C-alpha cells in the first residue's frame, strides 16, 4: 500500500508561520510553568509524603480532604486512584518543616482515628507477616507447641498476607476463612484477637527535601546532557547546522510537551523525566532520518538550492516519518489508555511528544537548519572564508 505517492508538498514555504505557532505554544507553556506554577511536582522532586490507600467502601475525596487538613496537613493533594470500583485514593502532603522522615505514620494514624475507631486490636488489613505470625504463635490455635510455632505460623501468616496482597484488602471474615492453609481454629482465633479495618495501605513514599532537590538537579542535568550529547553526535556525523536544527527541534518538542503536560496537570515525577529523555531520543531519531536524506541528496547534486533540497528530502522521507510516528503513537496511546494510573503520566508525555516530534521533524528542524545557515553561513561567505562545497548557496 502506498501512503503517499510521490508527495511533493512545499513544507518550507510557510516555515515562518510554523515556527511562529510553535514559538507561541512554547511561550504559553513556559508562562504556565514559570508564572502560574502549573507544573505539578510529585514527591520525587518536591519532597514530602505520598500514601496510597485502598478502602473497603468508596472514599469520599472531600471528606478525606477535611480529615487530612484537620490532622494538620494544609496543602495536601488528594485524588482518586485506580478504577472506579478500586476504592483507592492517593494522599500527598508537602514536606513538613523539621521532619525529614515524612509524615506517613501521622497520616495513617489520622485515617485510623476516623475509619477504625482509633486502633486497639491488631488490624488484619494493616498488619505485616512477621507481626501476624507472632500474634498467632502467642495463642497457638493449631496446638503445634512453642517449638514448632514460629515456623508453622510464619508459613500461615505468609499465605494470609499473600491473599491480602492479591485482593488488596479483606472486606469480610468469610474472605479470611476461605484462605487455603488457614485452619478453622486459626481463623476463629484471628476473628477473636484481630479485626478487619476499613482500609489497607498500598504504598508509602517519603522523600526528604534534600533528596528532592538533588533529584531535580540531576533530572535537569540528564536532560541537558542528553541534548548536548545529541548535538555532539550529529555534529560529528553531519554538519553543525544540522546538529543545531535537530537540537532546536528536540528542545522544541521537549518544551511544547512540557507545557501541555503542565497544563494537563499530571504529576511530574522520576518516571516523567524518563519519558522526556526517551522523547529526546525519539525526536532526534526522527529528525536525523530526514537529515540523513538531505546529506545523501547533497552528495548527489550540489547545484540545488537549500530550500528545494530540504523540501525534497522531507518529502522523500515523509511516508516513513508518518508510519513510524503512527506506530509509536499507537503504542503510546495503548499505554495511556490501558497501562494503568501509575504510568499514565509517562504515556501522556510519549503520546503528545511523538505527535509534536513528528510535526517538528517536518516543520521545525529544517527551518532551523536553514536559519542557522542563512545567519552564520552567509556571514562566513561575506568574510570570504567560504562555506565550502558541502554548504550550497542559500535561497532568498
Amino acid at each position, binding site marked *: 500500500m502506498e501512503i503517499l505517492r510521490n508527495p511533493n508538498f512545499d513544507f518550507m514555504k510557510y516555515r515562518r508561520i510554523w515556527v511562529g505557532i510553535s514559538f507561541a505554544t512554547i511561550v504559553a507553556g513556559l508562562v504556565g510553568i514559570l508564572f502560574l506554577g502549573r507544573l505539578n511536582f510529585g514527591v520525587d522532586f518536591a519532597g514530602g509524603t505520598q500514601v496510597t490507600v485502598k478502602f473497603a467502601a468508596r472514599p469520599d475525596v472531600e471528606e478525606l480532604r477535611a480529615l487530612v487538613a484537620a490532622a494538620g496537613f494544609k496543602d495536601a493533594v488528594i485524588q482518586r486512584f485506580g478504577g472506579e470500583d478500586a476504592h483507592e485514593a492517593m494522599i500527598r502532603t508537602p514536606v513538613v518543616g523539621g521532619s525529614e522522615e515524612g509524615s506517613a505514620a501521622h497520616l495513617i494514624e489520622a485515617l485510623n482515628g476516623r475509619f477504625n475507631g482509633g486502633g486497639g486490636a491488631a488490624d488484619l488489613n494493616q498488619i*505485616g507477616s512477621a507481626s501476624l505470625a507472632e500474634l498467632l504463635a502467642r495463642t497457638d490455635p493449631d496446638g503445634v507447641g512453642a517449638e514448632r510455632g514460629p515456623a508453622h505460623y510464619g508459613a500461615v501468616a505468609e499465605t494470609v498476607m499473600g491473599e491480602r496482597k492479591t485482593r488488596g484488602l479483606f472486606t469480610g471474615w468469610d474472605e479470611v476463612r476461605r484462605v487455603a492453609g488457614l485452619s478453622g481454629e486459626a481463623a476463629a482465633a484471628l476473628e477473636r484477637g484481630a479485626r478487619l479495618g476499613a482500609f489497607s495501605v498500598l504504598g508509602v513514599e517519603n522523600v526528604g527535601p534534600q533528596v528532592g532537590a538533588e533529584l531535580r538537579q540531576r533530572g535537569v542535568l540528564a536532560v541537558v546532557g542528553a541534548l548536548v550529547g545529541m548535538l555532539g553526535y550529529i555534529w560529528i556525523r553531519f554538519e553543525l547546522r544540522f546538529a543545531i536544527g535537530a537540537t532546536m527541534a528536540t528542545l522544541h518538542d521537549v518544551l511544547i510537551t512540557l507545557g501541555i503536560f503542565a497544563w494537563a496537570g499530571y504529576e511530574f515525577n522520576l*518516571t516523567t523525566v524518563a519519558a522526556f529523555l526517551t522523547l529526546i531520543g525519539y525526536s532526534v531519531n526522527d529528525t536525523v532520518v530526514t537529515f540523513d536524506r538531505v546529506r545523501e541528496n547533497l552528495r548527489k547534486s550540489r547545484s540545488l538550492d537549500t530550500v528545494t533540497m530540504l523540501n525534497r528530502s522531507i518529502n522523500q522521507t515523509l511516508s516513513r516519518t508518518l508510519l513510524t510516528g503512527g506506530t509509536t503513537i499507537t503504542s503510546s496511546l495503548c*499505554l495511556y489508555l*490501558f497501562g494503568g494510573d501509575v504510568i499514565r503520566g509517562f504515556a501522556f508525555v510519549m503520546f503528545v511528544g511523538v505527535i509534536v516530534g513528528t510535526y517538528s521533524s517536518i516543520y521545525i528542524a529544517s527551518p532551523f537548519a536553514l536559519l542557522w545557515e542563512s545567519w552564520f553561513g552567509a556571514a562566513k561567505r561575506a568574510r570570504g572564508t567560504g562555506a565550502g562545497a558541502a554548504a550550497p548557496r542559500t535561497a532568498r
Partner: protein
Amino acid sequence: MNKGLLWRGLLIGALAALAAWRVWPLRENVNLGLDLQGGIHLVLRVETQDAIRAETEKDMEVLRREAEDEGVSGVVTRQLDDTRFEVAGFAPERLEALEKVARDWLGGGWEWSREAGKLVFEMRAVNEKSLRDGAINQALQTIRNRVDQFGVAEPLIARQGIDSERIVVQLPGVDDPERVKRLIKNTAFLEFRLAEFPWSGYGVGSREEILEHYGGALPPEIEILPSEERDRATGKLLSTSYYALQKRRVITGRDLRSASPSQGQLGQPVVQFMLAAEGAKIFADATGSNIGRALAIVLDGKVVSAPTINSRISDSGIIEGNFTSEEVLDLVTTLRSGALPAALTYLEDRTVGPSLGHDSIRSGMRAGLYGAILVVLFMLVVYRLAGVNSLVALALNVLLLFGALAYFGATLTLPGIAGIALTIGMAVDASVLVFERIKEELRAGKSPRSAVDAGFGNALSSILDANITTLIAALFLFQFGTGPVRGFAVTLSIGIFGTLFCGVFVSRWLFDIFYVNRPRTERISI
C-alpha cells in the same frame, strides 16, 4: 549464497532458542523490581558527625586523665567543635610533659598548636575520614545483622557511592515497613546504672522532688532520667516517674554475650541476657556490694525498670519492663546485632504494596499486547507480505529482549514494561525505513532483487544514526536514574540492540530465503 543463508539461519535460530531457554518460565527467570513485586526502598544518612564528636570527647578525656597521672595537674579541657578541643590550666613549665602525654596517648590522629597558656588540638583529616568510613561500615554491618534476623530474602544493603554518608537498603517482599524502619534505626543503647535516689523502689512523681532531696542542686556525678509507663495495647502514655542515677555505667549493651526473649514470673515478656566474662566480673562486684539498692536498666536514655538487687548476680539476668512481646523481640534483635555507631536519618523511603505491583504488571502487559496487535495489523495492512517479515522480526525482538533481561539478571520495573511496550512501536522503525527505501528503488525501476539489496544498503546509515541517538538518551537515563528508571534505561538499550539485529540482519535473511528460489521474481508484495 545458499551456504550463507544456512549459517545466518542457524545463528538466528540458536539465538532464539537460547533466549527461549533462558526465559522459560518467565516468572522465575526475570527479576521483578521493587515497584512490581512490592517491598521497601530506604535511603539513610549516617550522622557520622555523632561518631566524630564522641571520639573527640573520648580522646579529650583520655588526655586529661593521663595528664593527671603524669603529674600535670590542674588541666582544664574544653571542646570547641566536633573536631577540636583546647587544653588549658596547666603550669607553663609542664607544657613539654603534656605534649609528651599527647604524643603517647593520642597516637597520630591529632595535631596541636601552642597558644597563650593553652594547647589547641585538631583532629587530622585522615583520622576524621577513617572515623567516618568506620562509622558507615559499622552501621552497614549492624543494619545487615538486623535485617538478617528479620529474615528477608535477597536484601540489598550498600553505601550509596564511594564517598557518601548514605546507605541504601532494599528489602523485597517485606510488608511491615514501619516495624522494619524502627528496627533498623533503633539505637537500643542499653545501660545498667545504680540508683541514688530513691535508693530502691519506684521512682518519684517529679524532678522537683529529687532536686529538693539534694537541696536544689544535683551533684555532678548524678543525673535525672525519666521512666514512662505506657498502656500495653494502645501505647498511650499513662504516667512518668523520675530516678536520680549515677552517671557512671556499671555495664552496657556491649558487655552482653547473648540475649533472648523469655517470660517473667507472671508470664509477661522479658529479655533474658548472658554477660561476657569481663562484664560478668564487674557486674558481680557491683551487685554484690549493693544488695538492697535499685539497679536501673536504661534504654536510650529512659529507665525501663529499676529492680532492687536481692543477691550477687554474676553472668545472667533478665530485663523487665512494660514490654509487649513484639517489643521484646525487637529489643533482642537490636541487642544481638550490636550498637549503631551514630544516629540514622531516613532521607527517602518508599514502600510498594505488592497489590499495586500486581495491578501495574497486568495493565502494563495488557497495554503492551494491545499495542503490539495494533502495530502488527498496521504493518500488515501497509506492507502486506513484507509486513509478515517485520512481524517475525518484531516477535523475535521481544523474545530476545526478555532473554537478555534474564541473561544479564537485569531488573524489570514498571517503567521498564512501558519501555517494552514503546519498543514495540519504535522497533518497526527499522523495517519501515528499509521497506520505504525498497519501494523507492522499485519506483526508480529496479528489479525486486536489486531493490531489496539497495533498500537495505541505503537505509543502513539512517537506521544506525536513529538508534545511536536513542542509545545516547538511554545512557543519560541510566546515569540519572535510580531503581525503576534504571530498569527502563536497560530495557530501552537492550531494545535498541534487538532492533538493529532483528530489523537489519533477520529481516534481510527473511527476504533472502524468500528470493533464493525465485531469482527472477517480477513482483514484490510490499
